[in-house]
């Protein structure tokens, strides 16, 4: 167990490392977890969450969510808010995979209706949504067009026939974060990314067909408002981000920031935690470049959803909207944004970093689309390919974490170890026996994604609810999956 002896229990789901824990901490670090989840956290969590607490301009606390584990700079599950005038921006607080996120699509189809077509659906999705090492996307763009996509995000997709206004309305930031400037991205980043729009990636990225079982509905009223309205309803969920493009943007600016830190007299505790004052030229250039990666990722998920609609239309010979394939929501779990929050009774603009952490706005929040204004923001949290995933909602008590909650389950075992213990082909067979049909680009890659290599998603989500930072609405179980 790596839990430091200095940790203080605030309550059953909240723990604090005081400022005295590490020299230079400006605020305490707060970790949201049950005692069990806390005991499973690696030492990197405590080291990194306390490093983040030393960053200039940090407000309140350095936070870690219940699914926290070691990351680069910030822990995965890390969140920190900064004063935009005095604070810093750090690529380590956003992640290499900028705007990695989740999209959830509801349908009017039941499991009984799709069961005879399940293998056909999964096979076609596998053919038509590129996955795996070196995959290239189905949207053919020149490098100049790619730069336009990076500035316009889902707006570009709407204009080119890849979606509806409703899709954008049900995406964070309406699928396009303003202020993206493609002159701030390197030609190398464009070269890496311009062929990747319309690709899922590999590793823990996936596209799943999932089912709502009656016993997994936690709040029927909320579920209905979200479009989950009958037993054994089929939904689709997928997880992907900005691919090589986002990674290159992060890498480029990490190198730039390492050089800039001396100029701004910022101490380098951890090279992956390199940062720059938010209002410096370097900080603003990175913000504008990072927004390009955010927008590219929105566009990536938008075109993939379009492809999903095409596949369902092909298989059922009906218009996808007749099949009820409406987007429920799209969330980002690797991002930085300017948001307005109440601090000490005053509404202030703050710069929020969320790295492996999901925004969870409460009911009534002005940034929510009208359809969700009364319910709170849908929150989509993915588990392993064998277990399940969740739809939750934001709650008012989430104010304690600047309306932030967990994002997934986190690993318990290295990829290398998982490949030694599990075999991809055997996993496929075992999952088929349990009613999950899966197509994977790599058997070895699939072995790395075995359910036993991941933490228990139910524990993470329950801890989030107990802590009052989000509330469970529905649990989904996988029946079909494609992986890179």
């Amino acid at each position, binding site marked *: 167990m790596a839990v430091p002896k200095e940790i203080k229990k605030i309550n059953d789901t909240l723990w604090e490392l005081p400022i005295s824990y590490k020299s230079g901490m400006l605020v305490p670090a707060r970790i949201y977890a049950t005692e069990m989840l806390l005991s499973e956290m*690696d030492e990197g969590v405590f080291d990194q969450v306390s490093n983040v607490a030393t960053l200039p301009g940090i407000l309140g606390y350095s936070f870690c969510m219940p699914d926290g*584990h*070691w*990351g*680069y700079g910030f822990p*995965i599950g890390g969140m920190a808010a900064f004063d935009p005038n005095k604070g810093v921006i750090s690529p380590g607080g956003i992640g*290499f*995979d900028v705007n990695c996120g989740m999209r959830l699509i509801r349908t009017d189809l039941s499991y009984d209706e799709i069961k005879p077509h399940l293998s056909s659906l999964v096979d076609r999705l596998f053919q038509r949504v590129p996955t*795996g*090492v*070196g995959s*290239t996307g189905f949207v053919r763009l020149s490098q100049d067009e790619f730069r336009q996509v990076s500035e316009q995000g889902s707006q570009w997709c709407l204009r080119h026939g890849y979606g509806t206004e409703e899709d954008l309305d049900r995406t964070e930031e309406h699928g396009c974060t303003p202020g993206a400037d493609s002159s701030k991205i390197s030609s*190398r980043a464009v*070269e*890496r*990314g311009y062929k*990747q729009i319309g690709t899922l*990636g*590999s*590793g823990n990225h996936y596209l799943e067909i999932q089912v709502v079982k009656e016993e997994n509905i936690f709040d029927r009223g909320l579920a209905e408002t979200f479009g989950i309205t009958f037993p054994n309803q089929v939904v689709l969920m997928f997880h992907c981000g900005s*691919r*090589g493009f986002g*990674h*290159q943007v*992060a*890498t480029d600016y*990490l190198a730039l920031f390492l050089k800039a830190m001396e100029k701004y007299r910022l101490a380098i505790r951890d*090279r*992956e935690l390199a940062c720059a004052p938010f209002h410096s030229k370097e900080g603003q250039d990175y913000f504008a470049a990072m927004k390009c990666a955010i927008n590219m990722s929105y566009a990536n998920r938008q075109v993939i959803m379009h492809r999903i609609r095409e596949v369902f239309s092909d298989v059922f010979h009906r218009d996808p909207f007749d099949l009820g394939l409406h987007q429920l929501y799209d969330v980002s779990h690797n991002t930085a944004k300017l948001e307005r929050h109440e601090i000490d009774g005053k509404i202030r603009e703050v710069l929020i970093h969320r790295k492996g952490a999901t925004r969870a706005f409460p009911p009534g929040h002005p940034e929510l689309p009208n359809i969700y204004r009364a319910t709170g923001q849908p929150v989509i949290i993915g588990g392993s390919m064998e277990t399940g995933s969740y739809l939750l909602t934001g709650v008012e008590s989430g104010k304690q974490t600047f309306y932030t909650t967990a994002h997934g389950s*986190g*690993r*318990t*075992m*290295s*990829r*290398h*170890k998982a*490949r030694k213990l599990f075999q991809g082909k055997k996993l496929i067979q075992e999952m088929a026996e349990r009613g999950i049909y899966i197509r994977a*680009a*790599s058997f*070895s*890659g699939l072995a*790395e994604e075995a359910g036993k290599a991941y933490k228990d998603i139910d524990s993470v989500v329950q801890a989030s609810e107990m802590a009052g930072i989000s509330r469970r609405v529905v649990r989904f179980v996988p029946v079909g999956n494609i992986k*890179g």
Partner: protein
Amino acid sequence: MPYEYLDDIAIADVAFRAEGSSLEEVFREAVDATMNTMVENLTDIAQKKTRQVSLSSESIDMLLFALLQELIFFKDAEQLLLRVYTLSITRDGDTYRLSCTLSGEKIDPIRHNLIVDVKAVTLYKFSVEQSHHGYRATVVLDV
């Protein structure tokens, strides 16, 4: 063993340690370890295309960092899997200079047993240091 994957760090990603009796050898092994994260059998990569790389840095670890980043770039920008064909490292005052010919071929999902996509080389615990037998590199890759 020229390189080995490490289970105790970076469980969410891939970490390896590469060894060599010379800088050129440890760099070559680190390139192979990076490629082997993505492809089951390196011998399946035929030598059909080459790419020339010239890099310089004031630190040897950042020189390796830059070389591994080139591999990731070629993988995404040109869908190439590459290994070292020739590599030399020279010292010019305070600067290390690397000249390298990488050779390989386009990714073929049928012939290449692909594993997982390497998205970035990270600076987490990244080091190139002298060891008993020459040099050792520790690298964590984001996958």
